[in-house]
């Protein structure tokens, strides 16, 4: 029966094939690389040929004196991004859905998608220039209107999280609306017509029809986002990393880059990456289980 069903939708499965190949090549095959965490890295040997190092790099990573700072900073930044980024995308999708002028809707969508295609290097260079204490426009205005010394916004730990969230939302909010807009477009229009006839106003239609209809998608997106909690985005944070904000900007991702690319301790960096992956997997399992019990929405 299942084979029959497979054959029936063979063309659809065929379209799935490139994605399977992609994940096999770029996600599954490289997984053998995690064995590097147990090996003594050498430039001239394949991972299999490198000598075993036992658990020494795990020991080194767990006993790193800033281990808990790394975990705390990573989780806090990811949580903030989720807290502000997720509702922002959902809200924008709901608002876009209410726009009647097709031309205006398209324009807003295009404008909000654009930052997604700009690399973090460009985004952070832009933010650095705008927020620079040396002739940055924000500081120029600040000193002109309010006086006092310029503020090193990116380096100041008290401003750091605000800039991280603001730049992340600005870059991703448009792109993240796509899936919500797709879900909204699948809602049966008859539901809206019936609600209108019953006297429901626009906000009520959004609240009682749109939101409940896309609840499963919201749940799934939230569960998937949970999987990324252990990764706060290395590019953005690495580019914002300053000696002055190290207390809040040292995260697992920057530690991996620092230890791997900067110091050449590839085994140690692999261990940190492995830790990140395993904890993410645990979080996603837990979130899925909680969601299934609480709301019936789950990934599997």
């Amino acid at each position, binding site marked *: 029966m299942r084979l029959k069903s497979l054959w029936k939708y063979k*063309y659809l499965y*065929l*379209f799935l*094939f*490139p994605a399977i*190949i*992609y994940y096999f*090549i770029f996600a599954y095959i490289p997984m053998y690389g995690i064995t590097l965490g147990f090996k003594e890295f*050498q*430039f*001239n*040997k394949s991972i299999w040929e490198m000598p075993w190092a036992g658990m020494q790099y795990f020991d*080194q990573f767990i006993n790193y*004196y800033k281990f808990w700072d790394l975990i705390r900073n990573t989780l806090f930044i990811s949580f903030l991004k989720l807290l502000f980024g997720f509702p922002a995308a959902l809200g924008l999708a709901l608002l876009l859905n209410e726009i009647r002028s097709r031309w205006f809707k398209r324009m807003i969508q295009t404008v909000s998608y654009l930052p997604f295609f700009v690399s973090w290097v460009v985004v952070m260079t832009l933010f*650095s220039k705008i927020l*620079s*204490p*040396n*002739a940055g426009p924000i500081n120029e205005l600040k000193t002109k209107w309010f006086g006092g*010394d*310029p503020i*090193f916004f990116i*380096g100041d730990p008290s401003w750091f999280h605000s800039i991280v969230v603001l730049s992340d939302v600005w870059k991703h909010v448009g792109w993240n609306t796509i899936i919500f807009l797709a879900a909204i477009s699948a809602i049966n229009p008859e539901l809206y017509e019936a609600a209108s006839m019953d006297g429901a106003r626009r906000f009520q239609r959004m609240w009682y029809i749109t939101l409940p209809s896309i609840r499963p998608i919201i749940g799934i997106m939230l569960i998937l986002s949970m999987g990324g909690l252990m990764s706060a985005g290395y590019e953005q944070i690495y580019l914002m*990393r*300053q*000696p*002055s*904000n*190290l*207390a809040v900007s040292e995260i697992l991702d920057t530690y991996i880059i*620092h230890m*791997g*690319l*900067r*110091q*050449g*301790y*590839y085994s*140690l960096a692999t261990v940190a990456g492995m830790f990140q992956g395993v904890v993410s997997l645990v979080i996603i399992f837990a979130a899925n289980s909680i969601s299934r019990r609480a709301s019936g929405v789950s990934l599997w």
Partner: protein
Amino acid sequence: MKSWLKKGFSLGLAMLICSVAILGCTNANNGKNNDPSTSASPAGSQNNASGEGKPEEVTLKLLVAWQGLSFLAPSDLANNPVAQIIKEKTGVTLDVEWITIPEIERLNLLFATNNMPDMVMAPYWGGQDVHTVAIKKAAREGLIMPLNDLIEKYGSNMKDAFNVGVASDFRENDLEDVSFNGERYLLPMHTPLSPEDTTQWAYNVFVRKDILEALDVKPSDIRHSEDLYPLLKKIKDGNFTDTAGRPVIPSGAWQNGWNYGSMLNSFTENNFTAFTKIDEQYRLGIFSELTEKRVLFMRKLVTEGLFDPEAFRQNDTVAKEKMATGRVAMVSAHYPHMNTVLSQSLYVDHPEMEYVPVGPIADANGENTMVESKVLKGQSGVPGMFIGADSKNAEAAMRYLNFINSEEGKLLVYLGVEGEHWTKDAAGQPKHTEKFLESAKSDPSYAVNQGIGSVYTLGVYGLPNRMFQAAGDAAQVDELYETSKEVYGLTVVDGYRLSYFNNEYPEFDKIQTLLDSNTQRDVIESAYFAASDEKALQILNDYRSQLIKGGVQEYETFMNEKAKTRDDIIH
């Protein structure tokens, strides 16, 4: 029928997508050599066609793993006058890659991917310097070409490269490391020809001359790092501006914080290693009281807005933007860098904003000012050049290096083409032509674009001071440079550095990770931004506790024991 067409089309489309996905993952040239050094230079055919005697034409790929050097790039790398003569003499044309990321990141990426160019120029400061550790590991693991045979066959001018201007312990432990089994892998560059030539770098603290004059401060009034503080306060309160009319930053640095450490000279002992002496015992400098003084002084500058907070991690472009408008009133660097970059930018329209060296600034011992600064007999670390193990152009690379290290080659790359850019005076000394001097004056990039004092100087060793005056009148004394060298000063010492016993410590790998210079730098620089002096010291003490927990005291004990085995130990 239509349904069949539809199905056929869908199937075709799906297969096409799959094929593209699969083909996209394969090597497009099916194993053919994609190396521009070979593809761009049909060596054999050209050689045969051009007849005998002409060197084989080769394009050498050179990676300059050194941030901030891209100003050495001529606008036309292949056809400038110097490049044409190099090509005529050696057959070599350079294809250069510059970097904008930290050197160690580029080196690690290079070695981990084994995607080696023909030649790499990189820092090799010796001992436990991260670059040295990475290059040595790559050499031991076969990624770098051994040089002994190549020098013997093609490097008649290179034979002295390992003896001229390098400290004996650096040669013994780094250039000729015992683990190399008698081989050598890295050619030292920019080494001094004589101990006196060591001053050629002329590292100093420089201040804009017009500001010093306006404040009526003489450069020699500055004798101690503490003297910089009132000067910086005056600069901040003095409403000085840059060329665009914006307020100056009292003090700052070039890329990645380079080289603000000179401002803190009075809080250092100018030691040759990471060790200092406390109660007659060798201890790591991080545990010394001087480190605390240094941190607290710098914290004062940063928190009072006297030092640019962005400077610690700014990139080369941002640093040059600031310097090109005279935005930073006080900065530390070596003279050749200051002069080369600023003579092409700030000094063109604003010669009054010239940066002059202040000092000499006394070091922590008070007795040794920078005039009498300690200099090892020969350099304790060098910029170096190595050849990729798989390079098919090693012979051409040596031919090129050998030529630029000949007398003829050095004159060519530093002064230009004889007759066109310089001639010899009655005393036989080279002197730039009037035409060259006029062109260099009207166009600051002229010399570099002609190939003079440009990328081709990388790879030259054993240099007399005069060679560092790339774009000036070689016969005319650059007074500012002479002053800078005088302020920098010279005291030559010789000995065996304590840190070279590191290799004998059984658990040094573990200690090395703990003492990693980047981590240490992060700790110290984050303390500059602490909310109070107490919190700054707390940051330092947390790190010290981590070091002790990690076994650093046992390491220090070992080093003290080892120090007793020689009587020429210096630290």
